């Protein structure tokens, strides 16, 4: 899409199928990572400390220029930088397949399943699916400038949510008011009664409108300023309120609509009269609304439905973005189609929208088995929707039945497991990773340090790398491939 770089970071859960397992989920996560890098040689492990919780060997960059690593005990995959929805959807699915294939190759698939979800029903743990959008540094990153984005994000869950059974307990949270941090409970926040089903996995865990942390006080808009690119030109909008999507369609629509709304804001065309009175509460109320009326109180004292609000954004996007490229037009058409169908029977959205697909499966099961919403089996089915094992997962059951429209192909997904998009910085990084693998400098066990022992053989980060202590090679522009420059640089530093 026009002037946009997309990226997705996904944390996976691991479900162990034994009553008294010998190993923890983290043990399996280590085995999968080690096999992927050391046996399959899909990439090169980091040889340096990336942070206090990322020691050498914790993860590394892949030949597709994405990353696999462990984060808080979870396997996490970060896609390479993508300039199109086609590439980001294929790259996202490539991460699923890389991990699932490794699990199978290790012979673990009967013992453990990879679950691409965001919640643990029993402990209320949560883990994320983070979205990244590159915007201009001129983007109005202020409360006022971001207000349309907040309204859009609060309401987009009606087609981006993955759905869940039940809800999480009230989250501890601290709210920033002027220069003070105060407990959310001091503002009189209360927990509504337990809903049987809600449309978003993450809504219960979002407790602020703006905040910079990612593990506590999660916000609708994360304000950490870490562009991973030239900070004079770019800003990275980092979102952590979204759910992991199983359907390719929802993944594409989530990223595509959000990308267009960011464009509307950048160009000064976003609707300005839709500021929500209490965005955090609205996020949770929409998610938990069992009648799916999704009504919201605006600061203007008007009440509007989430569908109407989304249609306002769609109208603006049609007016200002239509015809700019093929993907934009696809997004506009499908956005309109989904909003139209959301006004009717949710079953029309099965296969396209994850919460609708999951709810339909659960309702079919409840009807057949005469189960009520308190039946613990429903939470297990909820998990099974996200199981990446194609012979078990309920999403894959829908796919097998031909009820799920595809927006990429298996061929492109397999290609994205190996190769980077050819129109972003990822392409140059992929070249670097291939050279390092080829030169057999990839193993922690064989780090081949420089003669003076001061430098690791390589240090790779998203926007810079260094080989054998030579001058660092910056890659500040994600829209450039740096391919020839990387090759020239490697010629000069690798004997």
């Amino acid at each position: 899409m026009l002037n946009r770089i997309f990226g997705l970071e996904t944390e996976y859960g691991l479900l162990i199928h034994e009553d008294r397992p010998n190993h923890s989920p983290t043990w399996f996560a280590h085995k999968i990572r080690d096999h992927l890098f050391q046996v399959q040689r899909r990439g090169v492990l980091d040889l340096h400390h990336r942070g206090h919780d990322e020691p050498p060997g914790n993860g590394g960059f892949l030949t597709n220029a994405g990353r696999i690593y462990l984060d808080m005990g979870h396997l996490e995959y970060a896609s390479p930088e993508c300039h199109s929805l086609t590439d980001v959807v294929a790259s996202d699915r490539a991460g699923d397949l890389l991990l699932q294939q490794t699990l199978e190759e290790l012979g673990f698939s009967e013992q453990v399943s990879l679950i691409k979800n965001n919640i643990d029903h029993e402990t209320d743990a949560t883990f994320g699916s983070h979205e990244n959008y590159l915007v201009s540094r001129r983007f109005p990153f202020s409360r006022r400038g971001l207000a349309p984005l907040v309204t859009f994000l609060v309401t987009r869950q009606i087609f981006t949510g993955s759905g869940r059974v039940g809800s999480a307990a009230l989250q501890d949270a601290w709210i920033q008011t002027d220069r003070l941090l105060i407990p959310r409970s001091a503002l009189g926040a209360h927990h509504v009664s337990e809903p049987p089903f809600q449309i978003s996995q993450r809504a219960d865990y979002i407790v602020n409108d703006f905040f910079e942390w990612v593990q506590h006080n999660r916000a609708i808009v994360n304000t950490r300023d870490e562009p991973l690119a030239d900070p004079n030109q770019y800003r990275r909008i980092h979102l952590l309120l979204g759910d992991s999507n199983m359907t390719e369609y929802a993944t594409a629509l989530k990223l595509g609509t959000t990308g267009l709304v960011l464009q509307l804001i950048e160009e000064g065309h976003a609707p300005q009269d839709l500021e929500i009175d209490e965005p955090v509460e609205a996020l949770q109320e929409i998610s938990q609304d069992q009648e799916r009326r999704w009504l919201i109180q605006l600061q203007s004292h008007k009440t509007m439905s989430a569908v109407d609000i989304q249609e306002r954004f769609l109208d603006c996007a049609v007016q200002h973005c239509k015809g700019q490229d093929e993907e934009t037009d696809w997004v506009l058409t499908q956005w309109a189609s989904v909003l139209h169908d959301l006004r009717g029977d949710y079953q029309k959205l099965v296969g396209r929208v994850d919460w609708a697909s999951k709810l339909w499966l659960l309702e079919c099961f409840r009807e057949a088995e005469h189960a009520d919403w308190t039946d613990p089996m429903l939470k297990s089915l909820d998990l099974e929707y996200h199981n990446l094992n194609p012979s078990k997962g309920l999403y894959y059951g829908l796919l097998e039945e031909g009820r799920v429209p595809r927006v990429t192909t298996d061929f492109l997904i397999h290609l994205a497991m190996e190769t980077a998009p050819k129109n972003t910085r990822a392409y140059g990084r992929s070249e670097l990773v291939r050279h390092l693998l080829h030169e057999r400098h990839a193993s922690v066990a064989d780090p081949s340090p420089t003669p003076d022992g001061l430098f690791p053989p390589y240090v790779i980060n998203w926007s810079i790398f260094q080989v054998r202590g030579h001058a660092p090679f910056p890659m500040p522009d994600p829209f450039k491939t740096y391919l020839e420059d990387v090759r020239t640089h490697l010629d000069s530093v690798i004997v």
Partner: protein
Amino acid sequence: MNHITIPERREGPVDPMPKSPRPLEEGGGPRRPETESPEKDSLMKRMRKVDPKQAERYRQRTGE
């Protein structure tokens, strides 16, 4: 030195996205599983195979 060539990503001139979802049965809505004869329906079979206790076993750490 020899460079390793990265394979082409795209399958020639690729239509980046479909114009619309593949038409679904019954006017775009899902076909309801045959809940009255579930043994014939693969989705119901999948669901019945699920371990009812697996949600209890799914103990994850909080991430980001």
